[in-house]
């Protein structure tokens, strides 16, 4: 029995010593790094690096209805656009007071910028919204005849906005606002769905207003309510500046010159481009993919809302539906005018081309980046592959490395 115990003990000791020795000697080696790498002529797998330029094999422009919900609230009308503004203050912030008398209710909006005729008056009418809405989903198509009560104007405005930092104030229907304080309307929620501002037919300007998402509450859409008790002995002034907002936009069909495609914000237009990248072997590393597009300056419109001229590329995900795409919206991939010819945009589409190499290749989609698309009416018109001038056609320059077997 003693032998067995000694045997077990020896085994344990031997194992421990062995482990210790291994740890000690194993730690003697250097870590392989680039700095101490030993260069040799031992044949290693090599990369075959090539450069190729592809021309587009197809393109199209399509319209897509998306919710705006941007940082800017557009309101107004031009020849081809019409934009209405929706506001709802959070009902929970209105105290329940059935007996108050609303003496005045004033909506104040702070301007930011404009598009159109700057000296044209801005005119709009306020209506009460009749049903629930979500700023993340509502679109122009949602705003039908039942969306708001168009029979009663709850306020009107007409005036020339002379600067980008002034405020616009509108007196609202005190009866409508009193209902927002009434407990009787607690179970009658439609009365608390906010208001819609609809531009008049004679308006020739689109104004951008600050939204509830503005960094300062001073710039938020504000509702100022002066109310008194029934006896009129006590008067209170309350201010409400938290809620939801968006705008919905309509655009007439976009008419483009022949040989062009377009991307537009607001009433959203996007374009699809396709290239045949089958010459790049699968398994290749796409080192660079520079898509070069030329802007048509005569038909493009870059507004003051987002003066930085950026267009985002996206990976198209469906052969049949160009509205299905994927984009990381990284600014490094955005196309913007390069240092070469004026109006020449360069897009970094390496990730997109890499996906094509893996397959499938349904092309790419060009769009205005997320925030400008929801807060501007920028229009970028590019020459496509059918334009007569060869130099103006879209070109995709690709550098790729293929592991050699």
């Amino acid at each position, binding site marked *: *029995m003693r*032998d*067995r115990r*000694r*045997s*077990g003990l*020896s*085994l344990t000791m*031997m*194992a421990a010593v*062995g*482990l210790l020795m*291994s*740890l000690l*000697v*194993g*730690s*003697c*080696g*250097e*870590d*392989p790094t*680039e700095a*101490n*790498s*030993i*260069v*040799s*002529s*031992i*044949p*290693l*797998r090599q*990369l075959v*690096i090539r*450069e190729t330029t592809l021309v587009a094999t197809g393109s199209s422009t399509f319209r897509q209805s998306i919710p705006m919900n941007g940082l800017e609230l557009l309101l107004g009308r031009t020849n081809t656009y019409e934009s209405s503004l929706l506001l709802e203050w959070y009902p929970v912030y209105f105290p329940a007071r059935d007996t108050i008398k609303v003496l005045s209710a004033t909506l104040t909006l702070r301007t930011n910028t404009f598009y159109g005729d700057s000296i044209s008056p801005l005119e709009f009418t306020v209506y009460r919204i009749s049903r629930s809405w979500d700023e993340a989903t509502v679109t122009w198509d949602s705003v039908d005849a039942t969306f708001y009560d168009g029979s009663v104007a709850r306020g009107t405005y007409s005036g020339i906005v002379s600067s980008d930092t002034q405020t616009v104030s509108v007196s609202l229907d005190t009866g409508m606002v009193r209902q927002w304080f009434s407990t009787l309307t607690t179970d009658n929620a439609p009365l608390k769905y906010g208001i819609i501002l609809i531009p008049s037919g004679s308006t020739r300007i689109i104004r951008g207003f600050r939204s509830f998402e503005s960094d300062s509450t001073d710039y938020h859409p504000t509702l100022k309510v002066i109310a008194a008790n029934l006896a009129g002995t006590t008067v209170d002034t309350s201010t409400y500046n938290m809620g939801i907002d968006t705008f919905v936009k309509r655009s007439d069909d976009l008419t483009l010159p022949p040989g062009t495609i377009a991307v537009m914000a607001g009433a959203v237009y996007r374009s699809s481009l396709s290239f045949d990248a089958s010459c790049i072997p*699968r*398994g290749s*590393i*796409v*080192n*660079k993919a520079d898509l070069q597009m030329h802007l048509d300056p005569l038909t493009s419109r870059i507004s003051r809302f987002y003066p930085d001229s950026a267009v985002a590329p996206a990976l198209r995900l469906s052969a049949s539906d160009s509205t299905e795409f994927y984009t990381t919206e990284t600014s490094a991939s955005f196309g913007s005018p390069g240092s070469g010819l004026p109006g020449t945009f360069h897009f970094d589409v*390496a*990730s997109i081309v*890499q*996906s094509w*190499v*893996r397959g499938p290749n349904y092309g790419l989609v060009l769009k205005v980046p997320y925030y400008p698309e929801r807060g501007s009416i920028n229009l970028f018109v590019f020459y496509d592959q059918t334009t007569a001038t060869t130099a103006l056609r879209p070109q995709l*320059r690709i*550098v790729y*490395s293929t*592991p050699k077997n």
Partner: protein
Amino acid sequence: MTLMHHATFSLQQIPAGSPPLRTLLRCAVLAALLGTLSSGALAGSGGSGYSVLGLGDLRYLGGTRSAGMGFTGLAIPSPAFLNPASAATWFGLDRARVEISGLYEGIDADNGISSRYLARVLFNGASLGIPISTKDGIAVVVGLVPYSNINFDTYGSSSAVFSQDTMQYTLHYTGSGFLGKGFIGLSWRPLEQLSLGASFDYYVGSLERAIEQVPSGTDFRGGKSTTTSRMSGASGTLSAVCPSFGFLGSALAPLSLGAVFSLRGNLRYRGDESGSYNAVNDTLPDLKGRAILPPLLGVGIAYSLGGRFIVAADYYTQQWEKAELSGQPLRQVQNAHRWAIGVERTGATEVVSSFFNRASYRAGFTHNTTYYKPNGNGINEWFITAGATVPFVMDNWLAFAFEYGRRGTTEFGLLRDTFFRVHFSLNISETWFVTSEDE
């Protein structure tokens, strides 16, 4: 007189055996320990740059005892060690044995300008041998041994000039993985002068090689491509030992001969290539086929001097130029030839002997024309070995072997590896299936 004079104990000298369960528990603990040693956490920093070629660094079978003798042993049967290279050498096994091995490998790679020392610890095999009939020399051994492994990590740099710009880039090459061989074999001694052996071998493993391109600057993107070769399949090994030629005369009684022949391995091969580039992951369709391992022939001779000394020499050859991967010849390889000589002073068998007298001591020398042939330049290696086996309790042994040698050359832009290896193994035996008196 035969060559089975390795230090051991007769069954009569050993108290009644312990139950198999205890041995299995010990084995499990030791296996776990060695497994830990060979895991990535303790594996160290890397291996030879030559392992980028072929199937990587081929491992020599034979165990720690054989390593101490320059990897000879085809003609040296032993009741105390399990030589995975030759089943025919197991016929003297008289007790159940477990042998678990580890390997420390340090390689100083030199290109003539600079050098780098990398080291690692590896699992080097485990075997379990059970005697079935000592009278007929029938023993069964199962085990797992490494066949080859790759572990390289190196860099290169280059540039490419295009119509508008130039791309400077670094290439980072890495390799990892191993091909292992599991075996179950049987020895049988039909004649006093002849022992035969056969084993069923099953090869399995995967070898992974990756290349990562890292452009400098932000104008160009990089990516990483990884090629994985998975292989599995069965083969077999035949062996024979003539432990004594005493029937030809007493002077030839200490002479023994051995031979081994591993059959051509026809393995399933599946190669796939995957990549991660520009945040896009891709896996290319599998390339399926066969991997052909060439047959291996080895012959050995040994002579016992005075009962305590053994001199041995082995020769191996393998036609690697006939190796294939998915129908394509293995590139950058040549036929391999290895010869080795070794000597052993066997430990005393008496229990009363001193510790150092009971230990066995070994030395050897090996020259190997490796199967590497980069750019048409055959790579040779040589190494000297020394080793010892020391008893620690009863018929249990701790074996060490040291290798020091060189491979390759700094000419032709190649590498010269100066390597130092330490083999260590635990060899445990017990008399299974014998009821102990206190149970």
